Every structure is written in C-alpha cells, then in structure tokens.
C-alpha cells in the first residue's frame, strides 16, 4: 500500500488520452512530480476519481516494467466514466492504490506457456501481464493470445497488438469479431468458439478476462479440452467502494474480491459460493 491513510488519495495528472474505440479511451497518468504515481504488479487496480462525481476502480493496464507512467483503459458506461471521457490532457485526478492480489507472474506463471483469452475491455488487466511477459521474455514459454470484441472498432490497443505483439518471438495472436464487417479479413465468431477451434494445447496456463458470459463458455470449452482447473486463472469484477476489505461490499463467500482477488485461480473459485 503506498499510503497508510488508506482512504485518502493522492493527486495525479492525466498526460495523454488515446481513443481506442467509440467507448474506450486509454489514459496515461503520472504523479505531480511527473513520475510514476505508484508501483504495482499485473492484475492490480487503482481507485480513480474526479471529485464531485465519485470514485471507480480500474485495472492498471500498463506493465510494471513501464517506469514512466501508469495507464488505464476505461469504458464509458456511467457517471464517473462519462466525466473521465470528457476530460483533456493536463487534468488532475485523484488516485489511490494499487489494490488487490496480482497474477502470479513471478511464481506459478514462470516458465509456463501462457494462453490469454480476452473479450472487449477485458483485455485491460491482461495487457499488463502480456507486456510484463514481453519485457521478461526469457522467464516464460510460448504465448498465445485470443482476443475478440463486438466489432473491429471495439478492439482496444489494436495498434500495439498489430505492431508489437504480433512481432514478438513465440507469440501467436488471434483476433476475432462477433459479426462480418467490411474491411475485416480476420476471423469472425465468438471468443469461446474460436478459442476452442484453435485447439491450443492443454498444457498452457490459461488466463481469462471478459464479460461473465464469455468466461462461462470459454471455461467450459477449456475444461472439455482437458485443461486443468489449477492452470486456469480469471479476474472477478464486483461493485467496490473501499478497495481493501473494509466496506463489506465485494465479498464472495469469505473472500473479498478487492483484497483476496481480483485474480483467482479456478480451483479457488470452485470453493466459493456461486455469487458473482
């Protein structure tokens, strides 16, 4: 935790805003001193606000290996996010965090072949892991990425995917969109179906993030292909207020998603009530 005064944020500045899709923008954020506002690990989140509207929690989509700034990809879908979408570079925001248990990038994932499956804005937390893996390439095996969105216009970080990820050694990147679309010559079809067709070996460690319905079908597919639950990870998203296990809002059984998650291994979720 970067400050003991857990509920008190720090002020940070948005230095760059990039439009990804009609409703997603990526925000680059630094502290008032121009440096990274805090250190984090992939999968962790931070609480952001513009006072007067309220706070919301977002995955830190940049990798910890980025030493200059942190980034958030934010989908416009309510009060806080509407306002964030209307700001201009130079805007100050409040930030607190990072919160949550990260992906086990330094333990379980080390030396493994990794399969990332994401839908829509669900790429945000996975991008942090993917770039962490790229920057520590020797520590990990092969990487397969299956990423889909409603349409070609809804794929976030497309430039980085095309220009960097696809060129990375031992990276296979598979993009898909839900329906046929002009000027799209890639795959068309839902993520779970595509992931199954690709028949990635079940020795990979899989990391899923996306809408609940995508998770549900993708998971079923992976299990059918013989993936073991202990090799499947996902993140949960529940309503949150405090971010560190005090406000009582985000529990699933005896676990608080904000502090015990948001990253969970499938074997852990099996031991929790189905209430998320």
């Amino acid at each position, binding site marked *: *935790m970067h400050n*003991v*005064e*857990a*509920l*008190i*944020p720090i*002020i940070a500045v948005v230095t760059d805003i990039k439009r990804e899709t009609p409703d997603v923008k990526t925000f680059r954020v630094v502290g008032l001193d121009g440096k990274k506002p805090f250190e984090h690990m992939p999968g962790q989140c931070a609480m952001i606000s*513009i*006072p*007067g*509207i*309220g*706070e919301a929690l977002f995955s830190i989509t940049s990798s910890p290996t980025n030493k200059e700034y942190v980034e958030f990809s934010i989908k416009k*879908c*309510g009060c806080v996010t509407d306002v964030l979408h209307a*700001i*201009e570079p*130079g*805007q*100050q*925001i*409040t930030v607190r965090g990072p919160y949550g248990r990260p992906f086990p990038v330094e333990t379980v994932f080390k030396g493994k072949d990794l399969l990332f499956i994401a839908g829509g804005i669900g790429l945000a937390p996975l991008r942090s892991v993917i770039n962490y893996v790229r920057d520590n390439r020797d520590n990990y095996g092969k990487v397969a990425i299956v990423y889909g969105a409603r349409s070609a216009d809804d794929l976030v970080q497309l430039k980085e995917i095309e220009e960097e990820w696809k060129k990375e050694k031992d990276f296979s990147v598979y993009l898909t969109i839900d329906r046929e679309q002009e000027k799209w010559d890639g795959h068309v079809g839902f993520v779970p179906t595509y992931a199954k067709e690709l028949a990635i070996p079940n020795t990979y460690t899989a990391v899923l993030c996306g*809408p*609940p319905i995508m998770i549900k079908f993708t998971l079923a597919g992976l299990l059918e292909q013989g993936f073991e639950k202990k090799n499947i990870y996902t993140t949960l*998203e*529940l*309503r949150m*207020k*405090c971010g*560190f*296990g*005090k*406000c*009582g*809002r*985000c*529990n*699933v*059984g*005896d676990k608080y998603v904000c502090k015990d998650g948001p990253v969970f291994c499938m074997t852990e979720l099996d*031991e929790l*009530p189905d*209430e*998320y």
Partner: protein
Amino acid sequence: MKKISLANLNELYSAISANYPLYLPVERAGEVNYGYYEEGAKVRLDVLKTVKSPKDCFFPQTEDLMKFKVEGQKIEIIDVREHAKPFVVMGVRACDFKAFDVLDRVFLVDPLDTYYQTKREAGIVITHACGKVEESCFCKTFGIDPVNPLGDVTVWTDSENLYWRANTEKGEALTKELGDLLVEYQGNAVEEQQAKVNEIYAKLPLASLTTESFKNGDMMELFNSDKWQKLSEACLGCGTCTFVCPTCQCFDIREFVTNSGVTRFRCWDSCMFNDFTKTAGGQPRTTQMQRYRQRFMHKLVYFPQNNEGAYSCVGCGRCVKKCPQGLNIVKVIKEFGGKQDA
C-alpha cells in the same frame, strides 16, 4: 472498588463532562440512544438496549473523509481529520463492548483505518454490567460475560449505588480526576448481583442457544441450504437489522458538492438493500433471499473463517426486537440446529 450513590449521579456526569465530551444513553422523544450529556439530559443508564448501538462513537453513521477544492484542471485535497480529543463513552453493555472488538478486527487490520483508529484511541470506555436481562438477550452464546465486562472502567448499579472499578491506566486516571465524588466500597453488592443475574440468565428462552452447527459446518453446504428461502421469505429489505446492529460495518463512500468545494464522506450502508452490489454488468444478489443469506453467512460463517472463529454477532438481541417482520439471527441459528432447550 468505589461507589457513588444513585442520587448523586448527576454530579458524576457533570464532573466527567467538565473535562470530556460524555457520550451515554439519553432519552429523547421517547427513544433511548447514545448522545452527549448536557445539563438536564434524561440519562437512562438503566436501559439495556439503546435503539442504535454505541458504535457511532468510533464509526459514525456519517463521517466526512476529506474535502476537495477543484479549480479548472487542478485539484487540492483538504484533510478534514481533527486531532481527536479524549472523550468518554459511558454505559456500554458487555455485548456492545465486545462489538468494538469485532469492529477492531475490521478497521484496525492493515491497512489501518485512521478515521476509526483516532477515535478508538481517544475514547475512554466505561462499561456497565447488566443488573437485569431481557428475553431477547443471548450474549453468552458468544462467550460474553454480561455481569463482568471490561473496558477502562466497569460500573455496576443496583437500587442504591453505582459501583466503580477502574481496569486500565486510562480508567485509573479518570477515577483520580473524580476525586471525592467516588468513595471507597468494600461490600459484596456486586458479587450478589452477579450471582442473581446469572441465575436469571439461565432461565432465559435463549440461554442454551449454541452456534456449534456453524462452527463445524461447511461453508458451501450452509450456503446452498434450502432453509434460506423459507427463513427470508418475509424480509422487506428495510435494513433495520443492519442499522441497529453493533457489529455491522458496511459503508458507502459518497460525495456532495457545495459552493466551497466537494466533501467526500462515508455513511453506513446495508447488505440488505437491493442496490448494494448492483453494477452495470449485473447483480450478483438478485433476490432478497440472497441478501438475507449474505448477512447471516457473514456473521456466522465468513467472518469467523477470517477471524480465528470469532463471530460477528454479540447476541445483543436488537435485531430480535426491531425487525418489523420478526426475522432475526436467532431464527437462523435455531433453524440450522442451534439448541433451544438445554
């Protein structure tokens, strides 16, 4: 041990409140709740269950967290926390005192909640042993001793006197400040009362209630039990049970905008409310049954799981008395096998 005659209690209250804000059960508009002592206040030390518990004094129903000044693209954070001055909370019953311990397990673990912590450290707690009991009481189910609570000072009252025992340094200091108001006492009025109360407690309808079935129960099995449906059918989702409960700790964080800036505050919230967990993406608890189950699973299963078996219920019986639908944690404990008869 020391004592003071009941006839002189107002002098005691005045003497304490001359040095500290004094927070104790007072009657206002027919209801007894913790409030600040002022001259003429109708103090009701005799009442066992104030409507709301004394948790307000450490975890207020609403509490400002910070203010912001926003100018163009610039933001300034204004820390509104005051250096908490010592205050005295008097009359805390054994159950409510134990509830502070439950709240400590939430707010005083890393990361520390400094808003709670400063108040907790500034508070001097005078507990009040129970000289009577009510039908809705079941503190002993949770190992609480109603006739010998701790705190900085413990007091007992009978029909003549208030007996006073300091337990801590803070308590000793307070005792000293009160000087001659308290006189030495060496009789055994307290022991006699304790024995009598224990005897009556044993005859209470809930005296043999146990939570054994939760201690040894399996979380998933309890969660998936079909008993919850029937138990929760009448629940209105009004949240009364959570607001009167001394251990309920859920809060919301909100903001309001004024001419001079933005104030961010927190306020009690309730897992019984239907929008508590609602998100754009969905609602993990769509039915009142799920919300009802959450409240009691938290108190009897989830919380103990994370806190070396400590329950998040202290048997104060407020929810037993106050639920408009006659639902409560006792019904839950009984339904899952907690004995009613010895």
